[in-house]
């Protein structure tokens, strides 16, 4: 009897928990990896440039969030689009102290938004490095990134991701995540169904490419064996 009740309890709990996936995007040196480490509580971890992929899991209310941390370097941006089908929203990090790169950042963001998988998905923009005296305000970042014409639901939140040991973590990081989950909350069912379907589409495409490659290799091997016989 107890077991039955317990299972029922677990069932309800599972039902109320929601899983989402986010991608952390932004130019190299924006502070993506630092920001993720800080939210995870690893404030002292030093970062080096990311040329690849790393995923972490966070909890925010009833949301279990898987975050993809990707490299922002010039050559890596072209592969961001490979991850967009699976995400429910993106977190875009800007080095607010580096206004000279706003134009470049605007272009990188717009390229990502051109991908049809990004249609109607929310964007949380962190205007990072507010500890620097030269940091732009949220309004200046809105202008710099041309967000006035952005059709996706978005919000710019100033923050400082880097946390010297002994100082408290910037609460605005969690505020940002809360804004993002609450904007997803309203249409979770529909959005999640779409994300699952589109992610499956991409997986099948990848599987097809893999088959093609195996076929190519098999033919190469046969060809080689034939030549050796002659």
């Amino acid at each position, binding site marked *: 009897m107890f077991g039955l009740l317990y299972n029922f309890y677990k069932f309800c709990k599972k039902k109320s928990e929601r899983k989402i996936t986010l991608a952390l995007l932004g130019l190299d040196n924006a502070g993506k990896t630092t920001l993720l480490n800080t939210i995870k509580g690893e404030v002292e971890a030093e970062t*080096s440039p990311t*040329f690849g*992929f790393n995923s972490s899991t966070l909890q925010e209310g009833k949301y279990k969030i898987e975050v993809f941390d990707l490299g922002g370097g010039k*050559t*890596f941006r072209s592969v961001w689009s*490979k991850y967009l089908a699976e995400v429910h929203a993106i977190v875009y990090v800007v080095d607010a102290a580096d206004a000279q790169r706003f134009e470049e950042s605007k272009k990188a963001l717009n390229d990502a938004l051109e991908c049809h998988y990004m249609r109607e998905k929310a964007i949380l923009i962190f205007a990072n490095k507010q500890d620097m005296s030269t940091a732009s305000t949220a309004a200046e970042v809105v202008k710099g990134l041309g967000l006035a014409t952005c059709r996706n639901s978005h919000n710019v939140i100033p923050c400082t991701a880097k946390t010297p040991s002994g100082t408290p973590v910037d609460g605005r990081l969690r505020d940002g995540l809360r804004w993002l989950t609450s904007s997803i909350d309203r249409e979770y069912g529909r959005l999640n169904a779409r994300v699952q379907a589109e992610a499956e589409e991409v997986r099948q495409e*990848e599987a097809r490419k*893999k088959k093609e490659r*195996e076929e190519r290799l098999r033919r*190469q091997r046969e060809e080689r064996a034939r030549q050796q016989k002659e």
Partner: protein
Amino acid sequence: MGLLTLIRGLKRKEGEARILVLGLDNAGKTTILRALSEEDITTITPTQGFNIKSLSRDGFNLKIWDIGGQKTIRPYWRNYFDQTDALIYVIDSSDRKRLDESHDELTHLLEDDKMAGVPLLVFANKQDLMGAAAADEIAETLQLTSIRDRPWQIQAASAKNGTGLKEGMEWVLKQVK
């Protein structure tokens, strides 16, 4: 540069780490390890079995296994999978004809149960050669972008002139905490 210097830079690290270095024959695995150890790289011959590089420092013990990549040896790679903390996969970026073959071997590696979740560093080696494929091109050809079950990083490198090796190893050592 040297591996020892890299280990010295690690903060509060103890225990053991086991790193496996794989890749097709002629990729440059042995050359990379020799270069990292500041040893002569002019007299290297194809590895018939394996080489081990073992380093110790302040209670931290690092063992790097470099396995031969010739086709006849590849079936034995599996014997080395146990308890791997990080995998380094080396690619000859100038050998475009064999990128498919290299991709195929990597796929088998990553699908193995014993390799589940093991962090992956890809060295896009031989960047000094004309026509070498760039790191992002290799990431796409090898479908690294479809990996979700482990952290991965790609590092452009040249064992011949030493570029990229230190950066790659730093990433690996960060993963094995």
